């Protein structure tokens, strides 16, 4: 697999002409977005002035007006960005993925099926699932697929108003785990122990019955960041060897975000909670900006490097 520095070279050398064209397009799109936003904002102000003149202005009206104009602005911006986004994904993200491995499939508008999202049991059942940038294929003979996912839950309050809360937003990865196991083991970020300390937090953790048995791991650094629940104490430790625990900790530090893992039916599900849509073009900062480029490159190379990093390609003798 290509290294990050090789990919950076590829980005700035091979993709440079396309980046320049896209930069021009970005300037145009940004101008149009700003112009239309200003126009809509002025229109809203005008309506507000009219209301003020006729003395019918109320707090509700102001809220409603700003809400509607914000909605129109984001809708218009999305329309204006459509072509630019499509061009960016086809001409930058796709070649970048193929530079890592030409056999990989990339579908910019697809995302992982809900069935696969639910199979991990990490985030429960979402009422709405969206996403994009579906990448799939084999790395060193190990199947891997991932996409951006935004999973939401619907809530209804007593007045019948609906609202949506986010269950998960970020990168969702499915791959194969080389060891044979029968139960379910989940690794979650440790929030209880961090908030309430070892003793009380530990007690809260042990009361989370829905997740299965609490498994205390014998790696203090890992145990501090994560909490493990499993259907079988021995199996959980068979899966989570000392090496793997160290690698999971490294993955968390490398991504800089919360990491969730689930080992189920010989699959490994990894969810990295970025809290935003990844692989999207920037509007207000340059695509040639080193920081912007590094985010695309590092995320891709980290995700596709997982097979090697977690040694998922080292099949056991009995599974060959």
């Amino acid at each position, binding site marked *: 697999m290509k290294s990050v520095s090789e990919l950076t070279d590829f980005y700035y050398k091979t993709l440079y002409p396309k980046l320049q064209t896209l930069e021009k397009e970005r300037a145009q799109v940004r101008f149009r977005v700003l112009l239309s936003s200003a126009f809509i904002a002025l229109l809203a102000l005008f309506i507000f002035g009219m209301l003020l003149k006729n003395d019918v202005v109320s707090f509700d009206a102001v809220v409603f007006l700003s809400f509607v104009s914000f909605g129109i602005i984001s809708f218009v911006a999305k329309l204006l960005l459509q072509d630019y986004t499509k061009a960016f994904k086809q001409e930058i993200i796709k070649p970048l993925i193929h530079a890592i491995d030409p056999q990989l499939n990339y579908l910019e508008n697809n995302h992982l099926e809900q069935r696969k999202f639910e199979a991990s049991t990490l985030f429960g059942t979402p009422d709405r699932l969206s996403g994009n940038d579906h990448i799939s294929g084999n790395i060193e003979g190990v199947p891997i697929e991932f996409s951006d996912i935004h999973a939401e839950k619907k809530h209804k309050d007593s007045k019948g108003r609906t609202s949506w809360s986010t269950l998960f937003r970020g990168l969702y990865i499915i791959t194969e785990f080389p060891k044979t196991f029968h139960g379910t083991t989940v690794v979650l970020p440790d929030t209880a122990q961090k908030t309430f300390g070892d003793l009380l937090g530990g007690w809260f953790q042990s009361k989370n019955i829905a997740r299965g048995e609490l498994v205390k791991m014998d790696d203090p650094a890992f145990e501090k960041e994560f909490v493990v629940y499993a259907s079988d*104490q*021995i199996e959980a*430790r*068979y899966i989570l*060897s*000392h090496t793997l625990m160290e690698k999971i900790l490294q993955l968390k530090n490398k991504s800089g975000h919360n990491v969730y893992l689930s080992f189920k039916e010989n699959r490994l599900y990894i969810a990295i909670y970025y809290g935003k849509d990844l692989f999207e073009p920037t509007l207000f900062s340059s695509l040639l900006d080193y920081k912007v480029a590094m985010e695309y490159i590092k995320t891709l190379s980290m995700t596709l490097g997982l097979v090697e990093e977690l040694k998922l390609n080292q099949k056991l*003798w009995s599974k060959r």
Partner: protein
Amino acid sequence: MPTSLIVLAVIVVVLVFMYNSLVSKKNQVENIFAGVDAVLKKRYDLIPNLVASVSKYMEHEKSLLEQVTKLRAEANKPNVSEHQKIELDAKVTSALGSIMIAVENYPELKANENVIHLQRSLSEIEEQIAAARRAYNQAVTDYNNAIEMIPTNIMASAMRYTRKEVFEIPESQRQNVDVKELFK
């Protein structure tokens, strides 16, 4: 006197809670030991096959092979205590390790399909045993903590619960292999 009744009720509830938690910790240890036993047995089952395949070649290591066979016979006896099983496991682990190192000296063995298969199976089982040992040690630590810490220690001594032994994890398994170190 309702206050004293309430106090009494609280004491009873606390005692029951302590008793139950001790029993569940003891049962957890036993439960996991059954799992340890199962994987240990899997390894013992491989020993006759291994001895049969290598004994033809290994003239100098006859005593080692005899020792492993003897250990296996001991482990398979009825009424072996947990403590003895832990001791036997340590001996078998080191004896099998020596045999595996000795195999390296016999080119015919190293190339033997059957021996290669046995070696792989053993290292796979070894990994499962390592996991089982870790699970057992954690359960024993929880149990030992409970019988030594205040206030459960009083209850535990009344119940005649005594400390249990943990598996010694060999230093080689505890450390992660650092490739950089190997080539220094």
